[in-house]
């Protein structure tokens, strides 16, 4: 049913329909509304679930790890410093192959402290063994959570999934979202069938020590599973379309790229702005397009290559930066094309850090810049006056 609803509230309604047995979270802006909505459902008796108020994100992540270890579906949401405080637990969850789902309401990372949106928090955790989805709008944010549980809990995958939703821009935006019925979600998402559980009837040891003769194979196994996830994610997206009647999820989305000679690649809500500019410029006769990266990990290299191999000018727009190197998605694209027969120009732009607006003009400027030399790490919309004062 279509509703005019805040992003966080819509995500909470979706999680309710996914029926986690335990939710644990710790307050941090801008994800707070998600947890508050969920615990209110429980307080109202609308949801059979326990909400464990953790004393830190490190603990809230450890708590859902414990829940998963006894074979119960769990959920957690966080942002920014909270995600970084969870960092070692997130690695532990992935290493132990627990099929958990968390939401990251993307926010900049301290210092300086800044509560506004960029994607530095989740991008920093891209190497942790979690599958990562990035949502363009709140409809996709909701749909991706349902698919996330299906993918995480697939017994051939059994890896955790992080659904990344731009803080404020999506979490606090009120827009129309088509929320599914409980029956539809039940039909799409069967009850969790855990691979291994802690049970006195059949005792196992979990999280044991692996020495140099065995540790590396555990990493290799996750790497292999990530490749399998590249196959499963599009399949789950098409099943989702059959059940719910709309396209959502998958690896990437192409937007007016078939004959394009300039394409911007980006993740999250900024893709909507890029699409608008593409429409405007197409109206002016320019052959421009956009690629939305939905699945950031596993990196859909083949899909990106297939979509972009005939495009001579590519721009990657990162809302994060690997300081001292370049935009992480930019580097991913370079890796995708390095050594291939085609070698398009792949320029990198860093934009929107700490909530700096990315306007239509910013996007136009990026398209315009592509005609010149390849750019490796260009900051967009820097305040020149501040820069002069700083140097």
């Amino acid at each position, binding site marked *: 049913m279509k509703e005019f609803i805040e992003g966080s509230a819509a995500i909470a309604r979706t999680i309710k329909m996914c029926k986690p*047995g*335990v939710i*644990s979270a710790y307050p941090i802006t801008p994800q707070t509304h998600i947890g508050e909505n969920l615990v209110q459902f429980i307080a109202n008796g609308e949801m059979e*679930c*326990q909400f*464990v*108020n*953790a*004393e*830190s994100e*490190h*603990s*809230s992540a*450890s*708590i*859902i*790890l*414990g*829940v*998963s*270890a*006894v*074979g*119960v579906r*769990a959920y957690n949401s966080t942002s920014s410093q909270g995600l970084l405080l969870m960092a*070692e*637990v997130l690695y*532990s969850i992935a290493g*132990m192959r627990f099929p958990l789902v968390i939401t990251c309401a993307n926010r900049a990372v301290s210092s300086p402290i800044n509560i506004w949106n960029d994607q530095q928090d989740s991008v920093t955790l891209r190497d942790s063994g979690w599958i990562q989805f990035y949502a363009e709008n709140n409809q996709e944010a909701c749909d991706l959570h349902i698919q996330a549980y299906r993918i995480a809990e697939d017994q051939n995958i059994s890896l955790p999934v992080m659904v990344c939703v731009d803080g404020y821009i999506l979490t606090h935006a009120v827009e129309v979202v088509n929320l599914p019925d409980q029956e539809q979600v039940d039909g799409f998402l069967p009850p969790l069938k855990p691979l291994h559980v*802690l*049970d*006195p009837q059949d*005792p*196992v*040891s*979990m*999280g*044991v*020590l*692996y*020495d140099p003769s*065995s540790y590396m194979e555990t990493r290799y196994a996750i790497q292999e599973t990530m490749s399998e996830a590249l196959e499963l994610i599009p399949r789950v997206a098409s099943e989702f379309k059959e059940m719910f009647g709309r396209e959502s999820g998958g690896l990437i989305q192409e937007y007016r790229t078939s004959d394009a000679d300039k394409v911007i690649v980006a993740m999250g809500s900024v893709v909507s702005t890029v699409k608008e500019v593409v429409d405007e410029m197409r109206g002016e006769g320019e052959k421009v397009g956009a690629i939305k990266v939905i699945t950031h990990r596993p990196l859909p290299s083949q899909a990106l290559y297939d979509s972009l191999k005939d495009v001579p000018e590519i721009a990657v727009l990162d809302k994060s930066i690997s300081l001292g190197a370049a935009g992480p998605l930019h580097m991913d694209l370079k890796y995708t094309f390095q050594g291939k027969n085609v070698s398009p120009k792949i320029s990198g732009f860093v934009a929107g850090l700490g909530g700096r607006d990315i306007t239509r003009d910013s996007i136009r400027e990026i398209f315009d810049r592509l005609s010149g030399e390849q750019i490796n790490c260009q900051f967009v919309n820097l305040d020149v006056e501040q820069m002069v004062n700083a140097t």
Partner: protein
Amino acid sequence: MATKHLLASGHTACAGCGQAIAARLVVDAAGSDVIIANSTGCLEVFSNIYPRTAWEVPWIHSLFENPASVASGIEAGLRSLGKLDNVRVIAQGGDGSSADIGFQAISGMFERGHDILYVCYDNGAYMNTGVQRSSQTPFDASTTTTPSGKKSFGKKMPKKDLALIFAAHGIPYSATASVAFPTDVQRKVKRALDIRGPKYLQIFVPCPLGWRHDPALTYDIARLAVETGLFPVIEYRDGELASVRKIDAPKPVEEYLKPQGRFRHLFSAPGGEEEIEKIQAIADANIRKFNMVKERPKKEEKMPELKKFTLEKLAKCDGKEGRPAYVAYKGKVYDVSKNNLWSDGDHMGMHEAGRDLTADMEDAPHGEDNMLDMPVVGELEG
């Protein structure tokens, strides 16, 4: 004791490891219907290595500082499955994990009221990483990060009182035990697991490697820590002191310190004697605080015939100005003159000697054992 242990032999703990003995006592007492969440540390490392494990019960290890949080999740998950009536949850770690890096997680777990027993194996340092000091390292112990030297006697601070801190969370049960008293350890584990809610148990476990003592002396040293007064074995129920393991006569702390290499510098370096006096003062303070010494009439002395006391006569034995301090309890008159907690006939600023305290006992934080241990000098008339 079970013939089949739930922590199997064949693990890789050092000879004489107090933690290995205590961990087996704990899991055997808990029985097989238990799930254990373990911190990183010696116990985690020596009890398993892929593909082998010594645990005969379901067991999980994630990180150094999170066993209390992982256990909280396990407990919530079991509750969700409706299995919490049949399965008990134990979280456990060393003193570094429990008192330092994982302290906040335990505090959170206790505040939330999870039905979990947390066991801290206290060997007073980070042994797994090579004997670095923790907040449970005792005063003047030499560790690799509080080394003794010309300008150092070792660790400058005494132990943080974890059992009291956790008792102050308002949890129903917080206790200490020593591996020297295995029956007491197992009794306390069972007692704790019978209580629904958060429980804490700290077990004193010598580490021959870190303490640099003969592995054959593990039990002796653990016993001496109690008998000197350096490690009080106590129980708090609902935040109140409920029991104290009594000792016959306190042994001088030197007996405990001398066999251990980590205190050797106190017996050779100039100024070491004064340091040992400071350690003796810590032991004496514990003995006074917990009234640890059992006072009994000497066997060779014949019991004097009991005097008859009226309330008036009793009132004159008020402990003031050198007078003896007597109190009446259930018809008998006890001599509390020599008790440290009754100096000048005053007890905790609340009770005075020279009176019948039978009614007051109901409100006392301790049981009547403390009174019955005092020498009887007469009977109260009327």
